[in-house]
């Protein structure tokens, strides 16, 4: 059953359009991430679902209850949507103890004091915060505050929880731990979560599905594997990973296979949207898929080594191909000699129409 359904949502600030017809569904027990560059509208979409922003067109349904319908001017206020929202800044109330912060949602729903005590204690324990109930937010570390914010959003069992960049206020090391922990918690408690992030690795690690937003529209949606391994547009391919790009002209496109000729090279790969003979194109490949060969061959390009950098767990090699550059990873340093042959394996190479 879909816990959350958004359909054809439009929103603008003054004359500036922010969302241009966004649709999404969130199934029970799923984590869906809204991913996108800043200004793509992902946070606005989350806030519109929460009821903190008002769209002018479209519908939002939570379970089978319509909470927003632009055509009927129906707009259920935020406080009656019964959602849980975790803010980027956590927004813990500094004048309330941790216990009171978490208890507030239950108090608002008229639970008895005994009930509240049991539920809050249990929630705090589930998030390993059991001993911190009587402290105030400023006495907690960033990671603990983040968990309190989560406990506060979960304690009254909302059908959907909304997470706005939940990990971005943690330092890099803690973030990787928290991301695994958060994913595990969401799965264990069978929560349905909508999560905003600008970090593609975080989105892939945490979500069942990713929605990539671009300019207020959903560019592509799918599982992390689909998004990374089978991007439908240049934008998605570019956003989801670390890439090499070669520009040229598409000379052939047939049966899902395209060939692109560039400045002194010719490569063949999977044809993507809009790839047609005679149009300018871009060949794109993930950096980790590039291989270094000794001899010329198909999809191999003669290249000059610019530099070989040691980055800890591996080497990163930088090559020059005409005016362009190619990056590749390797286990050992390369010696500078005139010609290397860089292989872009056909099954890992995508050919896009330029600007798609």
């Amino acid at each position, binding site marked *: 059953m879909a816990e959350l359904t958004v359909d054809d949502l439009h929103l603008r600030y003054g004359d500036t359009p922010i969302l241009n017809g966004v649709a999404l569904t969130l199934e029970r027990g799923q984590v869906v991430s809204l991913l996108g560059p800043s200004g793509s509208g992902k946070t606005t979409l989350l806030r519109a679902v*929460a*009821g*903190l922003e008002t769209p002018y067109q479209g519908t939002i349904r939570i379970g089978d209850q319509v909470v927003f319908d632009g055509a009927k001017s129906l707009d259920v*206020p*935020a*406080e*009656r*949507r*019964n*959602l*849980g*929202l975790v*803010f980027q*800044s956590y*927004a*813990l*109330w*500094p*004048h309330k103890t941790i216990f009171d912060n978490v208890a*507030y*949602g239950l108090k*608002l*729903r*008229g*639970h008895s004091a005994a*009930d509240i005590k049991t*539920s809050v204690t*249990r*929630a705090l324990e*589930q998030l390993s915060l059991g001993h911190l109930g009587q402290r105030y937010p400023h006495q907690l570390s960033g990671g603990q505050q983040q968990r309190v914010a989560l406990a*506060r*959003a*979960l*304690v*009254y*069992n*909302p*059908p959907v929880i*909304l997470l706005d960049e939940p990990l971005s206020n943690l330092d890099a090391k803690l973030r990787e731990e928290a991301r695994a922990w958060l994913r595990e918690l969401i799965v264990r*408690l*069978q*929560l349905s979560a909508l999560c905003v992030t600008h970090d593609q690795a975080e989105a892939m690690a945490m979500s069942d599905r990713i929605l990539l937003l671009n300019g207020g529209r959903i560019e592509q949606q799918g599982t992390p594997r689909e998004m990374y391994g089978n991007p439908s547009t240049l934008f998605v391919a570019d956003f989801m990973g670390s890439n090499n790009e070669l520009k040229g002209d598409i000379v052939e496109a047939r049966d899902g296979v395209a060939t692109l000729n560039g400045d002194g090279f010719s490569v063949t790969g999977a044809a993507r949207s809009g790839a047609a003979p005679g149009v300018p194109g871009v060949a794109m490949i993930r950096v980790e898929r590039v291989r270094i060969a000794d001899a010329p061959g198909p999809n191999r390009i003669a290249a000059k080594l610019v530099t070989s950098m040691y980055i800890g767990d591996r080497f990163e090699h930088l090559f020059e191909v005409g005016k362009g550059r190619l990056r590749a990873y390797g286990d050992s340093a390369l010696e500078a000699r005139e010609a290397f042959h860089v292989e872009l394996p056909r099954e890992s190479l995508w050919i896009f129409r330029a600007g798609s």
Partner: protein
Amino acid sequence: MSTVPAAVAPVAPNTLLARFPRALTILVTASAVLAPLALILYQSFLTAPFFDASKKVGLGAYRFVFADPDFWQAFLNSFTLAVGMTLIAVPLGALLAFVMERTDLPWKRVLEPMILVPSFVSPMVLSFGYVVAAGPVGFYSVWAQDLIGTAPWGIYSIPAMAVIAGLTHVPNVYVYATSALKSLGSDVEEAARTAGASPFRVAATVSLPLIAPALLFSAVLVFFLGFELFGLPLVLGDPEGHLVLSTYLYKLTNKLGVPSYHLMAAVAICIVAVTFPLVLLQRRLLQNARRFATIKGKAGRMKALPLGRWKPLAMALLLAWLFLAVIVPVSGIALRAFVTNWGIGVSLLDAFTLDNFRAVFEEPTHTRAIVNTILIGTIGGAIAVACYTAIGFATHRRNDGWSRFVDYLVLVPRAVPGLLAGLAFLWVFLFVPLLAPLRATLFSMWLAYTVVWLAYGMRLISTSLFQVSTELEEAARTIGASRGRISREITLPLIRHGLLGSWLLVFMIFEREYSTGVYLLAPGNEVIGAELVSLWQGGAIDVVAALSLVNIVLVAIGLAIALRFGVRLRD
């Protein structure tokens, strides 16, 4: 989370109840602000007082006033005073702000509250202080005569009044100039310094031009306050018969022998016609100043500019101003309160007496005035802050037509000088049968004070409210709290320290207030400020001196508590 009770939709808020307090707050505020003003406007177009049966609608009042050469002289005097004090207060205030905010001048922590003193002491009291200190037989004049054979100054002419008004309005410029300077990176000053500019050259060519928008705003503010002056021209203008608009209005009361409310109303409207555009201009300039401040703000890296050999000069300038604007009048009152009489050849020790205070404490009117003044500051101040908070909440995080209406509404009393507001409220209490029994009670006084200081109070409250991050309130909304509950359980507890600070500041302002009570003064609701005006008219110098000192002490107590608890004295 299977272990917690099943989800329950939040309790539906009663929308009528959720909206009603807001509508009521706005309605009450609007009537408290607009009714008195409307009454003045109405009265100004009548040919006789509004309660007079023979009244007719007409322009007779305006015709009379415009035909009176005294009115035009008063207008000219007001304008001269306003221009003069602006020319003195703005450069001096800007310079003091630079020295205090940007340089390594010592003892800043002690000096800062002292600089703000003139803005907390009643102008009536300050002016009286100048009379007894530097008037023809003032302490300092007599001492100067003993020392050098002459006291080469006079304080009763228009230029002298402009100088005194200018000196005592320096704090108004100072507060805005310092907050603008705070947001300025010190790198621009260091660049000028390394290029070879002296500290004062840096101030004149770099720092102060960069805060020009803030200075322009304070210039308009001081000019505007010049038109509002009442206590100072009343006390200092009297001996030589100089009238300004407000004192002209005040004298009209007895000019014709009968209540000349229609003439007073016409003058009042003339004053508002000058001040209201100035208030709107200030609002606009303040928004501009804030915008500029944020653009240039590279705050954070702030390094005091070393004054070097200019330090003695800067200190001398500051102390000279402090001496003239604070020490002379305050010491004058303090001395005068403890002597029987004063003049050439009188020794301070021989004339020492406590009789002045005895006279104050033996007269029930005076003791009541003291008690009332304390009550209106403490309890009245607290209720006023509660009202301001209610209005603040009515517009908080709401960007609709009503909020904009309230925004402008609170500006209206700003344009109505206390004297006029007091007069208007007197009429309201005479006019509205339901309110008539309350006229001679402290309530009428409190209501007028609260409305007169509405804009000031709202600024304090909104400063506190804006410090509450939006997300803290949104978090409560998404969890299911209605607006009312968010206000009570989240926002209000978060701003409680700000409210306590506001209470202290409003206490000081209410202790200081004098002009608003002038017309509302009645047996039973005496307050020191208005009482001083009436006693001064009666020539009771001894009692005025003693009461003035009591007034200064009350303000000083408020100031001491505020400093003790680290309340910011300005926004």
